[in-house]
């Protein structure tokens, strides 16, 4: 079991990369910018009382997008790149199993993204205090925890993709396709399904994205992408209600299971293919 050694090596390597520092700077700016918008522009908070829970809810969506794109950039080469370049021969010539490599990569790269995310979220506290937004420490901590889980999920997803092929080009293609489908094109899937289920008639509220208006099946489909599951989980921890209204598979608890599956299934497929591959 040398996954910790692999993770440390991986983090030490990435830590010196300029793109990590650029990523941190971008996330820091975004977090402070969005926090300031919420705190100082009344139109955005829609006049309701400023509190950290409202701020975090407002932040969840841009954070989800940032994490999705950043993890693709950080992780798509993680395993395939080593195989392709030949550094994988150093890695696996040493007593590291392929499972150690995969687990180490997931943890190392998660740490790589977790650092800028935590830095950004801590910097945001400055805005919270400066703007006299009421601060709920427990909710804030829960939000950070769920966000870090989300980082782990997306990193595991793309590391899994990377492990399933020996070509970084192929890893990039699959990763970008997955990202586009899950993050940008998913609405078409839900809207299309709803339209078909409704007998090819436009149902009421088709474009409102209101989960409660949807049939359960469509709502489940809409809650399926990692970022949707993350948003639901955030809503659950901030609203202190993990049960939600409707069917069990629409509860906020279940969104945590959905998140876990998005990490476990791609990582398992990646491991299976990687462990059988000729390098």
């Amino acid at each position, binding site marked *: 079991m*040398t996954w910790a*050694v*692999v993770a*440390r*090596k991986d983090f*030490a*390597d990435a830590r*010196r*990369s300029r793109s990590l520092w650029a990523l941190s700077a971008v996330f820091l700016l975004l977090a402070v910018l969005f926090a300031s918008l919420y705190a100082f522009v009344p139109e955005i908070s829609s006049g309701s009382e400023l509190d950290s829970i409202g701020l975090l809810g407002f932040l969840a969506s841009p954070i989800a997008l940032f994490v999705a794109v950043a993890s693709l950039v950080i992780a798509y080469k993680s395993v395939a790149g080593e*195989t*392709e*370049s*030949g*550094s994988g*021969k*150093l890695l*696996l*010539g*040493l*007593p*590291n*199993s392929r499972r150690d490599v995969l687990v180490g990569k997931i943890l190392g790269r998660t740490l790589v993204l977790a650092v800028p995310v935590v830095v950004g979220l801590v910097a945001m506290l400055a805005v919270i205090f400066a703007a006299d937004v009421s601060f709920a420490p427990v909710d804030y901590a829960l939000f950070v925890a769920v966000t870090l889980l989300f980082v782990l999920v997306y990193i595991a997803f793309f590391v899994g993709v990377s492990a399933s092929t*020996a070509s970084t080009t192929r890893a990039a293609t699959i990763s970008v396709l997955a990202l586009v489908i899950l993050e940008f094109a998913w609405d078409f899937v839900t809207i299309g399904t709803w339209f078909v289920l409704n007998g090819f008639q436009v149902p009421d509220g088709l474009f409102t994205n209101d989960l409660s208006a949807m049939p359960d099946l469509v709502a489940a489909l809409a809650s399926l992408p990692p970022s949707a599951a993350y948003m639901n989980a955030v809503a659950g921890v901030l609203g202190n209600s993990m049960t939600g209204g409707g069917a069990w598979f629409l509860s906020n608890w279940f969104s945590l299971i959905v998140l876990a599956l998005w990490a476990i299934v791609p990582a398992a497929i990646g491991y299976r293919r990687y462990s*059988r591959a*000729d*390098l």
Partner: protein
Amino acid sequence: MRSAIELTGLTKHFGDVVALDGVDLTVEEGEIFGFLGPNGAGKSTTIDTLLDFVRPTAGSARVLGMDAQAESLEIRRRVGVLPDAYRVYDRLTGRQHVQFAIDSKRTDDDPMALLERVGIADAADRKAGGYSKGMRQRLVLAMALVGEPDLLILDEPSTGLDPNGAREMRRLIREEAERGATVFFSSHILEQVEAICDRVAILNEGKIVTVDTIAGLRESAGSATELTITVDAVPDAALDALDALDGVQGVAATDRTITVTMGAGSKTAILDAIESAGAEMLDFRTSETSLEELFATFTTVADTDETAAELDDEAATEHPDETDDAANPAEVAR
């Protein structure tokens, strides 16, 4: 004596390409073993199998008495590896590389002592991305030496080293052997192994051509004689008769000359056979084959187009799906 490496009927196909074709080989503990062959012969594929980088199509490989697939992790704890066509981590320093090997093997070696031993201690805290080819080779050798391995597997260790570096490499190999380690290293250049190896195997087109000591090879090289006979015409009967003679290893002919390679045996018998087949002899010469020529005859195919094979070899390593044996002109031509 226990064997450090034991290959039994080892076969590997990459798609249609046969990289290894029933390789049987035993390397005893404590010996320095040279694994010779032209580029694309299957040397790296053999080594990749020992380390479980590739899985054999048929046959088995045992390393230090353990199965190369089932017990790979334990094997790699006790083996030091200098792979072929590797790449270092550009952003990590030399010291971090060696420390990574130490942590992976859970030993308590001193990284600086190892870097000192391979002669790059002064570059320990520079990023390996800025190292020259020779320094990278020394760095990975230092990683291979971590934990006093029982077996060192070195794939083309002299690559990128200047003559001085190659000499130091040989000194290190001897030191490791004196400590008790088995050293198994591959090369496509005979002179790199003849100074240092106890035994060598020659691999060509995925098959073991010969396994012998350097002294034994030298003996067969020295005793082999090449007769070149110029005649007025070459009757087929003459060639058949020559083939049947004791001690004759090879017969080749163009329209006016017959070339016979022979070990022990009578030259007169050869000349008699040619004359009794009805050919008139105009001239004849004899020459002894050198060790280099012997190696060349074992591996003629690659020597015809060494440069092209080398280029293709590099191209092939960029596509892990393909084998370096695809570079072998003979394989392609088949």
